[in-house]
């Protein structure tokens, strides 16, 4: 094929793709942040910023994965909190590994109730968020604890780019490979139409469980980065990330009704939400305004998605 035609096709295609628009907005917001805080270009600052954004990114990934199967996870914030308490209470690298495993188990448990128990995801995860928060309170009633030095060093390391950013890229790469695999494609099919997927012989239950388990892992990673960033654990620190994860996923183009959305877009959405919060904070807007802005952004994003035909409710 003529190379010129191929290139112009790609360019035209990408401008029609929502992911491109999402990233355009993300870049603009990051640009605004750079404008108000030029000190960010310093590698040390960039690394702090990347650490700060990581919980937004990973909770968004977690939520996106669940939404792809037409579910929702309202317990992500609680999982993040729980992970920080486990990491900080044990103070060891093994403890952190344990925390990650806990995240996967929580994801699996949610998945079992949704998939096998057939209880709607919103109720399951609302109830499990109580259980998980309760556990976090038991483990670490007040904020504190210590994070193992190797973990802190990991968070502070750079390989050209801050390590945190490499983890985002790595997650995208692994997901991209997974998405092309039969299992990955089946996952999208399940979200799109459960009946159709079943009729096509896909093992819907197992696929959902896989999605929830990976989602739990992502939520736990978010908690790990948060613990590293704040050098401690806190049983309620994760609460705001539940809403922001939904906002980030929706802004990132993931549909509630399943089967549609990308992790690339979700990363863009997470950067938008995370950077927006930082920009507001930097401009001296009250921390509480963050809630108002997130609520408004969430609604606005869904309205836009509806207008473009992505989030429309069936009937």
């Amino acid at each position, binding site marked *: 094929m003529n190379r010129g035609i191929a290139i112009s096709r790609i360019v035209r295609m990408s401008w029609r793709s929502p992911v491109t628009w999402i990233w355009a907005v993300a870049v603009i917001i990051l640009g605004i942040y750079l404008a108000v805080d030029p000190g960010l270009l310093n590698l040390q600052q960039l690394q702090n910023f990347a650490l700060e954004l990581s919980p937004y990114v990973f909770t968004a990934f977690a939520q996106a994965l669940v939404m792809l199967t037409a579910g*929702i996870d309202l317990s992500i914030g609680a999982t993040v909190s729980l992970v920080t308490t486990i990491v900080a209470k044990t103070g060891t690298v093994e403890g952190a590994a344990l925390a990650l495993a806990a995240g996967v188990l929580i994801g699996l448990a949610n998945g079992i*109730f949704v998939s096998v*128990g*057939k*209880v*709607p995801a*919103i*109720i*399951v995860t*609302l*109830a*499990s*968020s*109580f*259980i998980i*928060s*309760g*556990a*976090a*309170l*038991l483990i670490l*009633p007040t904020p504190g604890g210590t994070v193992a030095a190797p973990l802190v060093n990991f968070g502070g390391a750079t390989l050209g780019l801050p390590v945190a950013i490499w983890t985002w890229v790595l997650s995208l790469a692994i997901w991209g490979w997974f998405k092309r695999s039969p299992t990955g494609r089946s996952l999208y099919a399940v979200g799109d139409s*459960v*009946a159709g997927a079943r009729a096509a012989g896909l093992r819907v239950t197992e696929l959902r469980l896989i999605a929830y388990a990976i989602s739990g892992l992502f939520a736990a990673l978010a908690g790990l980065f948060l613990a590293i960033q704040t050098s401690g654990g806190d*049983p309620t620190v994760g609460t705001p990330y539940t*809403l922001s994860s*939904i906002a980030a996923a*929706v802004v990132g183009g993931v549909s*509630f009704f399943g089967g549609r959305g990308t992790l690339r877009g979700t990363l863009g959405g997470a950067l938008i939400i995370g950077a927006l919060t930082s920009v507001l904070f930097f401009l001296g807007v*009250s921390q*509480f*305004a*963050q*809630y*108002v*802005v*997130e*609520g*408004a952004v*969430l*609604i606005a994003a*869904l*309205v836009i998605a*509806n207008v473009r035909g992505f*989030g*429309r*409710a069936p*009937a």
Partner: protein
Amino acid sequence: MSTGARVVGVYIATALLWIVAALTLGHFTDVWPALQSAAFLGVVAAGQTVVILAAGIDLSVSMVVSVSAVSVSLFIGSAHLGTAPGILATLGLCLLVGVANGAGVHFLRVSPMVMTLGTLSILEGAFLLYTNGQVATGHSSLLHELGGGTIGNIPVAVLVWLAVSVVTLAVLRLTRFGRGIYAIGSNAAAARLSGVRTGWVTMGAYVYSALLAGVAGLLLFGYAGQGYMDLGDPYQLNSIAAVVVGGTSILGGRGSYLGTIGGSILLSLLGAALTSMNFGAGLRDIVAGSIILALVTLYARETRD
């Protein structure tokens, strides 16, 4: 399990729990205080029932309760409005929230979960901005009577709940609005095609939910003499659980407020039992969440996928 069977089941479960609690804990021989706390939940759950029957959900109720309690305190206290204007102003605020929710769900086609999560977030931010997270205290004789007073042995709050229950049941069963709710809940497109005024009915549902959450906030303020941000927190999960455990389908179109009444009593009883067992906050949350999870697994299974 049919709706009727589920409703009966809830009451049987409640009675059993009561007996067990009375035997093992030695309390709960006194009916009225238990019904009083159930009343607050029952009022919120009435609104939630209507919204869920219409295939929606209202996640903003917890903040509406808190905002209502604090607003009435500020209106009557700091703003020196009279009691009646203060109450009206507060309910007006709740009306606005309900209108916003309904408009978002119907006109903007935003999913109810997202819309009400959005208003929840906005209310949280606005609340914190306005009050700086402080507790609002105040006193209103009328509200104190309504929320905490008794007539003979019967708490007035229970009587308010009774009134709300009668209205809710009547509206759902006897009015065109009520039929519209069930119709939209079953199949929104068919409802619209058969002439149901879906815009009005949807708005009505969310307004009803917000107003009742506001009433609950007023009662709670009267009962506790204060309003604060976390006041409404228990009512978010519990109102949904009360509806679902009472036999109403989370997907809408099926169910009855009669079941929700039972669900409210059951969950309040559970909460009171856990408190009296002196569990710490963490353990209490774990047990409460687990029991709710178990209950909804038994009661809220949906064969529609």
